């Protein structure tokens, strides 16, 4: 470690989630000397936690859930080498025309559209394997989703997932992969681009929480907390921020950048998601097999600003969402095998904001306005109809929303007064600070962000290499 502290790197990456490894992979290939710092731990297939308690407490910030000021939405912010790609459900979707149109209109950056991004999506997809769950491996929860859509004449589509070989024929259950995929099938960055980046000379130091960045004679100095106590600092010619919406905002705010860039922390979006459960007479066993095979693909839903997902969660998550306590709680949970689950994911319009307190801790302020609530209610109504049309005896709405697509706070744009990142992925006014992760989203796209983060990172890396 000591030697790294005296070295001047070409690039330091803050965060080893999705964006950082995708960019670093392309940069080290061209000979750049890169250091990647990550607050979370590095796990391997052999060391992923095997129960929900260890999974949530070890792989997320704050030991699991973070709450906003009104505690109506719980935020899940991964803290692990591989970030979201370790703990997500590996859905990979391109943004549609609607998403890019709104991106352009908010950011005033002309460079983003379905066509212009297509080559970057192609390149991102070439780094990972993408599969659909074959029809005969869909579990009963997926069948209910599909049947409900058919009954109500809505359109759905099979999901594209970043996975290589789940060997579902052996009876594997995807739910087990939410704390890291022990099969190595999920195409997380440590299984893909991070692996090749490390082979090509990237230096990765996990368990360093970066707390401060500063410019020093044209170089960037990065200070972090060493888990063994004390501080460590590193130097580089360039810095890449890949700590996500909250992480990047917090770091920039704590480092005093808001004086020049007042928009830092503003424009926070999170696609608030709400799970609903249909309780059936027969056993559904939603946790078995490939539990997530479908997504809604309905033009009407898109217009209304929500989508429905065929999902499930671990028992400790569901236990938190069902109402009541005592005997009532037990009654719900004892019927768990009879639960089917559908989630409404809303495209939020009302931006939230990240601030930091005196201790430097991130404070989340995120309110769902009437429009956002309408979107949720419309989606929840469709879910109720699906459950009813497929014979559910009871419907349970989750007690609170979950925010896990954490986006914005360092929005891309042309005006430093209303944005943070310029069209070339640089921090406004800085030649050597970059970001291409979900923090640069100018608004909520309404589509799962991970594939787009990969594509943007590829584009940013190419832009850096071009200008070198």
């Amino acid at each position: 470690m000591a030697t790294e502290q005296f070295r001047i790197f070409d690039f330091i990456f803050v965060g080893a989630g999705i964006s950082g490894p995708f960019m670093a992979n392309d940069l080290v290939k061209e000979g750049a000397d890169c250091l990647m710092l990550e607050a979370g731990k590095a796990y391997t297939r052999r060391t992923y936690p095997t129960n929900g308690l260890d999974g949530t407490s070890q792989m997320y910030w704050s030991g699991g859930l973070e709450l906003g000021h009104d505690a109506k939405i719980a935020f899940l912010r991964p803290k692990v080498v591989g970030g979201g790609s370790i703990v997500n459900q590996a859905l990979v979707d391109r943004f549609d025309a609607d998403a890019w149109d709104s991106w352009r209109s908010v950011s005033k950056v002309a460079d983003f559209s379905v066509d212009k991004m297509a080559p970057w999506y192609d390149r991102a997809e070439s780094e990972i394997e993408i599969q659909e769950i074959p029809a005969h491996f869909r579990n009963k929860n997926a069948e209910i989703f599909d049947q409900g859509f058919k009954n109500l004449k809505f359109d759905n589509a099979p999901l594209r997932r970043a996975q290589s070989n789940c060997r579902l024929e052996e009876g594997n259950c995807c739910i087990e992969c939410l704390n890291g995929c022990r099969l190595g099938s999920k195409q997380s960055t440590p299984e893909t681009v991070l692996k090749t980046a490390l082979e090509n000379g990237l230096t990765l130091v996990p368990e360093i929480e970066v707390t401060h960045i500063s410019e020093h004679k044209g170089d960037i100095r990065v200070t972090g907390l060493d888990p063994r106590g004390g501080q460590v600092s590193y130097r580089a010619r360039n810095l890449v921020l890949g700590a996500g919406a909250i992480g990047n905002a917090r770091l920039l705010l704590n480092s005093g950048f808001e004086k020049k860039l007042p928009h830092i922390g503003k424009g926070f979006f999170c696609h608030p998601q709400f799970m609903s459960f249909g309780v059936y007479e027969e056993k559904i066993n939603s946790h078995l097999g490939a539990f997530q095979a479908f997504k809604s693909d309905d033009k009407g839903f898109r217009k209304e600003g929500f989508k429905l997902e065929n999902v499930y969660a671990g028992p400790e998550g569901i236990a938190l969402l069902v109402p009541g306590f005592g005997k009532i709680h037990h009654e719900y949970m004892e019927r768990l095998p009879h639960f089917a689950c559908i989630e409404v994911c809303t495209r939020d319009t009302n931006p939230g904001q990240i601030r930091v307190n005196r201790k430097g801790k991130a404070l989340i302020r995120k309110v769902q306005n009437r429009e956002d609530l309408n979107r949720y209610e419309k989606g929840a109504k469709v879910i109720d109809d699906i459950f009813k049309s497929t014979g559910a005896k009871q419907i349970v709405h989750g007690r609170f929303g979950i925010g896990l697509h954490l986006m914005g706070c360092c929005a891309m744009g042309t005006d430093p007064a209303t944005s943070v990142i310029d069209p070339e992925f640089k921090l406004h006014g800085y030649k050597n600070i970059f970001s291409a992760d979900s923090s640069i989203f100018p608004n909520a796209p309404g589509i799962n962000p991970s594939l787009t983060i990969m594509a943007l990172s590829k584009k940013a890396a190419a832009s850096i290499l071009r200008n070198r």
Partner: protein
Amino acid sequence: MTDQMMISRYFSQSQLKGLLKAGDIILPGTQASPSFSATGCIHHMDRMAKYLSEDDLNGLRMVFAAFRWMPKWKIKLILKLCNHSSRLPSFMGAGLRMLEIGLKGAILSPYYANLTAPGYDGKKVYDVIGWHPKMVVNEDGIPVKQTPVNLDTPTPEDVAEIYQRAKKAGPEIRDWGVKKRLEFISNLKAAILANQEYILDRLQADTKKSRFDAITAEIFGTLDFLDYLEKNAVKFLSDRKVPTPFALMGKKSKVYFEPLGTALLISPWNYPFYQAIVPIAQAFVVGNAVVFKPSSDTPLKGLVEALLAQAGFLPGWVQIVYGQGRTIGNLLVDGRPDKIFLIGSQPVGKAIMERASQYLIPVELELGGKDPMVVFEDVNIERAAAGAIWGAFTTTGQSCTSVERLFVHEEIYERFKETLVKETLKLVQATDEDGNADIGPMTTKAQVKAIAAQVADAKEKGAVFLTGGDWDGKSDFVPPMVVEGVTKDMLMDQEENFGPLLPLYSFTSEAQAIEMANDPEYGLSASVWSQDLKRADRVARMIYTGNVSINNVMLTEGNHALPFGGVGKSGFGRYKGEFGFYAFANIKAILIDQNSAKMEANWFPYTAKKYQIFSDLTRALYSPGRILPLIRGAFYGLKLETYVKKLAKKGRE
């Protein structure tokens, strides 16, 4: 599960009790589901707490602490309010939602992660909720299980793994801090109390000793020691300030007490429970990981592990290794513990010390004794005789501090002998179930043989057996034997007998008593009996030994504030009490100075002028007198300091 079994590095007992209460309100259990407290998942709270932010953790602590004394109906009311938080004004609703999510998260997560207390055999939560997802991992992805280690007669590879585990456990134990470590000790106490009868059964099965011997020495004694640790360990392990002399003015001196790392403890067969728990507990409380080897004659297999597990100890903290000392003793030393503590015989002590010397591992040895009891003419004969009988025959004489030589003043010799014989004959010998027997049979065959040899030798050389002379030399039921006419050439006079043999001698004067009592080899303990306490004290000081009881016998061990250990070939080092507490500690010296521009007088450069001032200072400070040396010392000290400053600025001229 009982309350005292919970230990957490992050929550106090009171907070945990509050959590348990709230846990049972949220998860009271049904016919199908176990309750929160029944599963014992509370044992796993730290797995979550470790990763919480300090703010969240403090919030939970506050809530748990509040629940500790809050009536259940109030907690239920709060939870009901939480249920309706969306209907409340936003500022109240937010607080309640945070409370609900925090509290439920803390309670539901360990419960629904299917975690239970060690030894839980009730319904598993995963079975109740039908949660059985499958994951067939390929060879590459098989999560490595801990390599199973054979603790029974381990191979060299096993031993390496055992020490590896201990090494890993060391920092963990140390991190708990002494107060939290003592919570484990409290739990252990509770576990021993709760299982007392079972422990006694196991002890009697292995040692055959009488139940009363077992309860007094092994249960009562052990609990008393743990109690002593609870009351004193924090004080003993607290950092201490020590004075800093005048010459080092402006600096601070402190002593820290830290664990050594891994302690190897080897115990004998005579008190297998006490000699297991006491050294284990002491080494652990100081913060060490422990490898413990009980005697292969009385292994009490699985008992100590079970009690430790019940008290919340993790398997790596204290590992108990079984096997013959001669086969695994060297291996265990080769594993390079940081300290070896052995209670046992001379030959074993020698062998272990020799092996340990190769690695320069510090050893502490508590070996045998040939303990004298000196009875003067002014004693209460009944009491002294009863004391002699108990001291010689308790645990059938198989104690390292049992009376092995009884010296009685000639003036009362005959009367004393008469009482002694009469009372000895009344002893009841059996492995009883109800506490009605005085002594049991012998524990090991080997010891029966050793005693037979001593008895045959003594008979052949003309000793007179006042009791027990009819023993056949084979039966385990070696009767208590009071023997007269034992001479220097007899084995019984020279060797430790470790059985119910009591040679009786008479003496004429205090000087002769001291001479006779002072064994050339051993020096573990002794007792002196006299009405004249001054005389008794005089004699106690003159006996070359580690422990002396006056007007009592084997009683220094009864007070755990006293150190224990021998001199001569009875071993060295002390354990127990404050002086013995540090047997497993690294006593670390700390000197603190300020960061400044100041240079020290004793550092380079050396110059002739500095030499002169320093020499003046030395003379001034240490010349006779009280005030004057101080004043002159201050003068030269100042002069030296001024000169050093000048030197620092201008360098050597």
